[in-house]
């Protein structure tokens, strides 16, 4: 393997930049941002160089040092796994991340804490790269946690806003719930198989599929818990929409392109663990999340929240794909999703910036004239998300639908097609309300296009969103997940591949797109307020209120914990401290009070007691 040092550099440069910014250049905004951008761009360049030299499938795919060593039973390595899966993710993280870093330079220009922001971004990049490169479970868990905390820091970046602080807390705790399962799963796998290295574990599972015994499904599902938390799957999906309290580049980077994808990536990385039963559960959870989020998205009014729910929904797609034993479609969709969802978020950020931090879509309108570049890029993103041929989203979504169809799981297939329609509907609802119709507020009439440093990343991402499905990304993942049969080669062949492979899926997907688009146009092209609540009634309220999951969790999980805490605290205060210590103290106190009567202050009483004492001693001495 050539340039073995490069992956290490790619991994540690962002950490170094975070450390340098925190320690030395916190006062200097420009320098800090340039350091951070430099680190990630250098990472991208090095990734390209490395792939150029070694290809997507290096012969030796691991390099490691020992992090903790307890002899035979437990060795925790700090190692890098370099195969198609991780190298492709490296490209995504550094590439999309780089674009977002550059965008942030413009977006955060006026913020006094810009340097801190870039330090956090670099820390996040480091952790994300760590997850991607991890070659064993513990290392993945380490970076898993670090990603969680950097997202915590970034969501709570504007910590003086109470809502931001709360959202950060919620994201952290919800993620922690998932991590709890993840670590338990890791321990279980280690306990049964005695190793943590993905390669070794995979080998063990391949030689003996029953190695995990009766716990196989449980262990798999526990590991899946990690993905549930990080990728915001039902039932831990509640944190992601709230996480939109962070600055928009953060939403783009963390909560669209990379971090939330980590769960899917992890599932693909550990695919060998899951039994058919576990995969079933995973698929249905994914499908359900996708449906749920799409429904909620229909009735949201905050531009970022709509995109956030769309992210949830797409993540559900990916998880469903993994559950349908299709890691390639999942990763493919992950990749294209990274492009177009980052694009959407950044365009939304541009809109928000143009609107002077107004996020309610019903305050916008007719922005296509004021912000032409943003309008075009947003349109490309929206079309890609909705899955219009030949944009990237079409291919990846089609491969997932095709996987469901191919697996004869018609229920999930139908759900998938339905969600595709919904996706188009809510995306274009947003699109029409924001860019068409009348200006619905003063701010909308004074909106302006953003600067070049913001639009340039938009354009780059738009290009990739458009052609992402055609540049052979899917093929790269086949290194990791080989499939039988021939791969059609060539650009034109790739263009029409879906219609050849599973025409039903492709055509139904396009039909759903058309229906969604027409519905959105009919309802929202000229609307000044939302016409849907009147038509749907209670359903719309439920959707608007996110099906009351927050309230449900508030009433169950949080109440339960607080309740138990209150009871335990009461026990601690009154039973342990009150009775236990109180009794001891009371007893001592009482005996003291009684004994103090002997202390009369009278000389002769003391003399008397003294004589008694002496005679007692004499008695014992002379007893015999």
């Amino acid at each position, binding site marked *: 393997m050539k340039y073995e040092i490069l992956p290490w550099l790619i991994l540690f440069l962002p950490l170094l930049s975070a450390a340098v910014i*925190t320690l030395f250049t916190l006062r200097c905004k420009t320098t800090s941002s340039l350091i951070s951008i430099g680190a990630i761009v250098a990472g991208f360049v090095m990734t390209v160089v490395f792939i150029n030299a070694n290809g997507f499938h290096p012969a030796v795919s691991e390099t490691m040092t*020992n*992090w*903790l*060593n*307890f*002899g035979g*039973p*437990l060795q925790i390595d700090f190692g890098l796994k370099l195969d198609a899966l991780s190298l492709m993710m490296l490209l995504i993280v550094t590439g999309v991340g780089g674009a977002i870093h550059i965008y942030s330079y413009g977006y955060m220009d006026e913020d006094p804490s810009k340097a801190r922001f870039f330090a956090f971004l670099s820390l996040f990049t480091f952790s994300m790269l760590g997850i991607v490169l991890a070659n064993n479970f*513990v290392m993945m*868990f*380490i*970076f898993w*946690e*670090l990603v969680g*905390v950097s997202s*915590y820091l970034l969501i*709570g970046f504007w*910590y*003086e806003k*109470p809502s*931001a*602080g*709360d959202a*950060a*807390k919620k994201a*952290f*705790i919800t993620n*922690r*719930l998932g*991590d*709890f399962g993840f*670590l*338990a799963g890791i*321990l*279980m796998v*280690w*306990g049964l198989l005695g190793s943590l290295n993905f390669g070794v574990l995979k080998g063990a599972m391949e030689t003996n599929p029953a190695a995990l015994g009766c716990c196989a499904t449980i262990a798999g599902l526990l590991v899946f818990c990690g993905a549930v938390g990080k990728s915001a799957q039902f039932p831990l999906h509640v944190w992601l929409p709230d996480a939109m309290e962070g600055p928009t580049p953060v939403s783009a980077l963390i909560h669209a392109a990379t971090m939330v994808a980590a769960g899917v990536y992890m599932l693909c990385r550990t695919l060998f663990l899951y039994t058919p039963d576990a995969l079933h559960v995973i698929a249905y959870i994914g499908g359900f999340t996708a449906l749920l989020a799409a429904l909620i998205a229909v009735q949201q009014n905050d531009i970022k929240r709509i995109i956030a729910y769309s992210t949830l929904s797409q993540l559900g797609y990916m998880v469903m794909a993994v559950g349908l034993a299709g890691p390639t479609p999942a990763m493919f969709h992950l990749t294209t999703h990274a492009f177009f969802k980052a694009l959407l978020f950044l365009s939304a950020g541009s809109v928000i910036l143009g609107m002077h931090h107004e996020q309610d879509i019903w305050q916008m309108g007719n922005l296509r004239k004021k912000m032409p570049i943003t309008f075009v890029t947003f349109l490309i993103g929206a079309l890609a998300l909705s899955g219009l041929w030949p944009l990237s989203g079409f291919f990846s979504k089609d491969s997932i639908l095709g996987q469901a169809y191919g697996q004869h799981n018609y229920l999930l297939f139908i759900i998938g097609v339905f969600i595709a329609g919904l996706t188009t509907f809510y995306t274009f609802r947003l699109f029409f309300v924001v860019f068409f119709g009348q200006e619905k507020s003063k701010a909308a009439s004074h909106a302006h296009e953003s600067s070049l440093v913001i639009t340039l990343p938009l354009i780059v991402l738009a290009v990739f969103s458009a052609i992402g499905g055609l540049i052979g990304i899917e093929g790269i993942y086949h290194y990791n997940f080989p499939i039988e049969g021939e791969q059609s080669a060539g650009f034109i062949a790739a263009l029409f591949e879906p219609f050849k492979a599973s025409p039903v899926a492709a055509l139904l997907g396009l039909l759903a797109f058309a229906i969604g688009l027409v519905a959105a146009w009919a309802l929202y092209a000229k609307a000044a307020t939302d016409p849907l609540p009147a038509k749907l009634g209670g359903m719309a309220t439920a959707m608007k209120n996110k099906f009351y999951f927050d309230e449900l969790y508030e009433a169950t999980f949080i109440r339960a*914990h*607080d309740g*138990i*805490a*209150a009871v*335990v*605290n009461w026990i*601690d205060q009154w039973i*342990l*401290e009150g009775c*236990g*210590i109180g009794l*001891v103290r009371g007893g001592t106190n009482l005996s003291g009070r009684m004994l103090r009567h002997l202390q009369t202050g009278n000389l002769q009483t003391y003399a008397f007691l003294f004589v008694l004492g002496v005679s007692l001693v004499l008695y014992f001495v002379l007893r015999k």
Partner: protein
Amino acid sequence: MTTSILTYIAGWPIIAALVLLVVPRNYRVIIRAIAVLATLISAVLAVKMFCQFVPGANGFQFEQQIPWVDSLGISYHVGVDGLNVGLILMGAIVAFAATLCSFEIQTREKEFYILLLVMSGGILGAFASLDLFFFYFLHELALIPTFIMIGVWGRGEKKNYATFQITLYLSLGALIALVGLIALYVASGANTFDIPKIIEHAKTNPLATNVQNFIFPLLLFGFGILVSLWPFHSWAPLGYGVAPSPTAMLHAGVLKKFGLYGLIRIALPVLPAALTTPILSPSFFNHFPFGWLPAFTQHWLLNLTWPYVLALLCVGNILYVGWVAMRQRDLNMLIGNSSVAHMGFIFLGIASLSLIGISGAILIMVAHGFLAALTFALSGYIYKQTGSLEMSELGGLCRKLPFIGTALLMAAMAGCGLPGFANFAGEVTVFFGAWKVFPAITFIALWGALVIGGIYMTRAIRNVLHGPLPEKWNTMADASHVWRKLPYALLLASLLVFGFWPRLLTDKINPDADKIVERVTAPAKAMDKVLVQADNSGVRN
């Protein structure tokens, strides 16, 4: 024999304390300078000692022995192996940081510094001692100043109550441990206070199992009270809540580890049978009518061993105290409770009786030492600025205190087990060690570590650092110059160093932890061997 570096590490603070006795009390700068210098020297020496330590070398290093009372077998004997090398390093660094943090003390400074130095010297000496007498004596030497410091320089309304409680609890714990140690001395029959010799002696002439089963609980609960083992924990949060921060730093960080260290150093290797045999002998059932209990309960009772009991008590520490911490409205009480909860992981590691678990436990001991010192230093700073640690009154402090706020954030994250800090390395190691022995309890401990820890730590951050800044705190000042920042930076750096390279410690710990584990599991293994031989012979016949 040349004087060991360990004698210097523990001796400098004591000498400085003696020097301070004759310095007039109005020479404040000189008093501080002497105290800082002495602890700095001892910290530097400790770092040097840590670097020179050879992992896996047989026996003790930097050893020194001076006979004192021959008839009883008492001698001044110091030395380090993997078990205490990290603790001494941690103790010396924390002592230095605590001395630096004593800038906040304004009244009776001279006495405070003297007590602080005596405490530091006592702790370091106790960890370095290989002689039961000095081991215990130096611990008491460090413990008594704690009470005085809390009583005199403590803060808040509950000061007296807390002082009494901590004094009584700790004295009780120390007393029970003392009884255990004396019983050990008498029962071992080695007629020496020298710990290695007692262990050697116990190897060749093991104590009778029932004697071990009698002594072990004395040591377990005696040391356990000193470490705030559930349900004897309530002194800790209360005491730390009112203690002046240097005292809380030294006690929660360093002195508290004495009990754990004692368990690992003495109780485990000398009393292996108490760990592996059931507590209740079958004859117990003949004396007491337990026939009415369901069969599985009887079985459970019969197979109850001390490690298992300890593991059950850990759940109290981790889960129960975690919940209590969630309810706290005072930052210091929260930190104190979380510190108690962390002890649970250490006990879990010890109870697992495996190399991984015990190494992890020692790793957490070191990590938690730094962490507890850091958090108490920070809360002390905030208290100094605001005069209140009531979380409902605080908020948005990050704006006025960027340095302290960042440090507190990092400390809170370290406290809920974030990778990169030494605590994570220790906790994850303990989980791995305990998983094979107590899967269910480890599962619960995971919940406590990841979820409950996460909840109360993020809540604290939300309430203290995030949110809008109340008007009245507009006058606060951040730690501005290097000397003020140094203790926090030093402690954070130590946490990060051992978090990134835990092998710095584990490679030193492992060989010696391995010896202890071997010692504990040896009887069981020997039994296995006998059985195997019996089987083999059976086959041959």
